[in-house]
């Protein structure tokens, strides 16, 4: 009798435990993203959603260096640990053709997101293949590479006078790459532990690609023809060669040990009085206007990527869209969250928290553009951005770029032309391997 009672109680306990677990699962969503400030803002936004709907949102993060590997390991295992992922723009090809992302084309059309969101964000964060009208993500975090600079150094009358005497024009926010280079050279003073510029040089993921693209696109160069996948004559064109040379030239004026740097170091260049100008994604600029994280916050200014010698002015695209993972058990709940996320009010809250909204209406509003010292530069930049290849084999293309450009940039081996000719050969072979070109 005693055993029978124990068994019954255990059974009831187990049933209740399972019931609670199921209930908890239905009322929660897990979003996977990289470890950075915007992920914290998204968690705060998620808390608002929980208040309104009772559905708990957990933004799970991992360091950038592991982000891609961890996400795709979970996708490949068809795991349901995450319901949504804020995946990099170049993942679109692999995510969609691999069957990891839910097709959001109907959702996109129903809510007219092609017109609601900024055109570049729709093109690069949501659609694959290009111009196909198939959408796999909702633009979530707009981002691009911009610049911060030391206003106090730039505005110092003595510095202005010395600069004018040396270069023959006024020291000001650089309008083109020539001025960027001159200012970097002017402030390069190793004996004073002051340096000219901080740029991306890390070759682990896409840092080097993003940095080089900033020069490449503004010099009028291209990675290749996105429609035909022809790369020869594009990535190794005269403009591309000049751009690589210009980017390498900037490396001469970086602080010591600047051979493997990404967003953390580039912000440190400003906070630790190392450099006059620093390249970084706009998403990392909030900490530069916060006196708690940047003692030079009051003296930090921002500008968009300058124009190249031909007047072209573009920037490398960062940022991500949010996708529903096809192995999630809670796709319906995830779609409800997306419906809430795209609302105008939510987009305003997202921007107010520090997230870079992709909503055209919010971006264009004076309220947004005046909210921070860099929002206007961000707004301008988001309408002139270009991105890396988003094809499923993007990781191989990225690896090949790192393999070729790093030894030239940092080690000084070969010439820019040789480097880019070799890269064109690598990319062409890769596109051939995957049947994109004959």
């Amino acid at each position: 009798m005693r055993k029978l009672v124990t068994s019954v109680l255990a059974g009831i306990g187990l049933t209740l435990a399972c019931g609670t677990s199921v209930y908890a699962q239905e009322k929660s969503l897990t979003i996977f993203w990289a470890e950075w400030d915007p992920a914290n803002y998204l968690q705060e936004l998620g808390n608002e959603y929980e208040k309104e709907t009772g559905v708990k949102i957990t933004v799970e993060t991992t360091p950038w260096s592991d982000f891609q590997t961890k996400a795709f390991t979970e996708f490949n295992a068809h795991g349901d640990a995450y319901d949504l992922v804020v995946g990099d723009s170049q993942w679109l090809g692999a995510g969609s053709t691999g069957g990891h992302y839910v097709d959001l084309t109907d959702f996109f059309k129903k809510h007219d997101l092609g017109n609601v969101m900024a055109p570049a964000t729709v093109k690069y964060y949501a659609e694959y293949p290009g111009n196909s009208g198939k959408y796999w993500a909702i633009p979530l975090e707009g981002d691009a590479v911009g610049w911060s600079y030391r206003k106090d150094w730039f505005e110092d009358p003595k510095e202005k006078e010395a600069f004018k005497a040396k270069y023959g024009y006024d020291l000001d926010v650089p309008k083109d790459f020539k001025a960027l280079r001159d200012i970097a050279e002017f402030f390069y003073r190793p004996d004073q532990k002051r340096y000219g510029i901080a740029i991306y040089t890390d070759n682990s993921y896409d840092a080097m690609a993003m940095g080089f693209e900033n020069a490449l696109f503004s010099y009028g160069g291209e990675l290749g023809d996105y429609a035909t996948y022809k790369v020869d004559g594009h990535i190794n064109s005269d403009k591309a060669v000049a751009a690589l040379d210009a980017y390498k030239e900037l490396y001469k004026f970086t602080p010591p040990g600047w051979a493997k740097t990404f967003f953390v170091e580039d912000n440190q260049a400003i906070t630790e009085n190392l450099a006059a100008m620093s390249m970084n994604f706009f998403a990392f600029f909030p900490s530069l206007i916060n006196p708690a994280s940047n003692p030079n916050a009051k003296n930090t200014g921002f500008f968009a990527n300058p124009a190249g010698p031909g007047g072209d002015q573009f920037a490398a695209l960062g940022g991500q869209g949010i996708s529903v993972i096809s192995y999630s058990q809670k796709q319906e709940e995830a779609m409800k969250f997306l419906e809430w996320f795209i609302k105008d009010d939510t987009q305003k809250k997202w921007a107010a928290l520090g997230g870079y909204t992709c909503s055209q209406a919010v971006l264009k509003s004076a309220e947004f553009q005046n909210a921070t010292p860099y929002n206007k530069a961000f707004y301008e930049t988001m309408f002139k951005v270009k991105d890396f290849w988003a094809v499923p084999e993007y990781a191989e293309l990225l690896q090949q770029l790192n393999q070729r450009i790093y030894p030239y940039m940092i080690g000084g081996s070969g010439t820019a032309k040789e480097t880019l000719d070799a890269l064109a050969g690598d990319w062409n072979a890769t596109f051939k391997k995957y049947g994109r070109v004959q």
Partner: protein
Amino acid sequence: MATTMITTLDRSSRAAARGLSDMSIRNFFIIPTILFLIVFNIFPLIYSLGYSFTDFRASTNAPANFVGLQNYRELLNDPFVWNNFAITAKYVIVSVSGQLLVGFGVAMLLNREIPLKGLITTLLLLPMMLSMAVVGLFWKLLYDPSWGVINYFLGLGNFEWLADPKMALYAVALTDIWMWSPFVMLLSLAGLSAVPKHLYEAAAIDRAGPFYTFFRITLPLVAPILMIAVIFRTMEAFKTFDLAYILTSQPTTELISIRLYKMAFQEWQTGRSCALAYIVLIMVLAITNIYVKYLNKVKER
């Protein structure tokens, strides 16, 4: 013989009485271990061999297509992969020979009566007890051109150890030498203490010089144990990943293990990376075999 059998039977019956018969031990310990080995070692090994002949990519839902020896052919014709092997070979030679020289040298110094010998030996063993990741991060700070103590003490100014593509591999090897020389030292000490004292006494009576004593007595007798150290360290150095990855991770330090990791888990070329893993495995086996044959010859002398 009869006594032994009785004792054995007694033991078996005593074990049986406690509920641990030979059969139970086999069932509870040996069979699970064998199953574990089959499931986690043998099966993946065979499974990955199968994948190495396919174009499988784990990041897609596409089925694996049989491509024969294409992966092997392409890898063996890939100049990048050969460059990775060349970097690895260079790293192994520098790192292992450095460890051998430092480890054996320190062992020679310690193989005499000195004060606090035990404490010094223990302290010297500390580096190899640390985790690779910790050592990597620690040395990254030491090498830093702005605030690293190495440049400060050596008066090298802003010399870039890890950023300079020509220097980075040697910097990684230097860290590995620091970490693993104690291992060689430990084995060498064991070998040196086993050299019979009377040989040195005989050499002293014959008025043999230190040079002659070292090359004719010490080195030949310690050589077999040094060879074992070389085998272990070569295998370890060949598969070094974490130290190079944490310290620099640049093309000139991209060891074959790092290339393999990137191919498998960043580029998701699963079939191709399986083929590369097998090429590496065959190479390590071949090198180890050469060493073992040489070790046997040294022992026979």
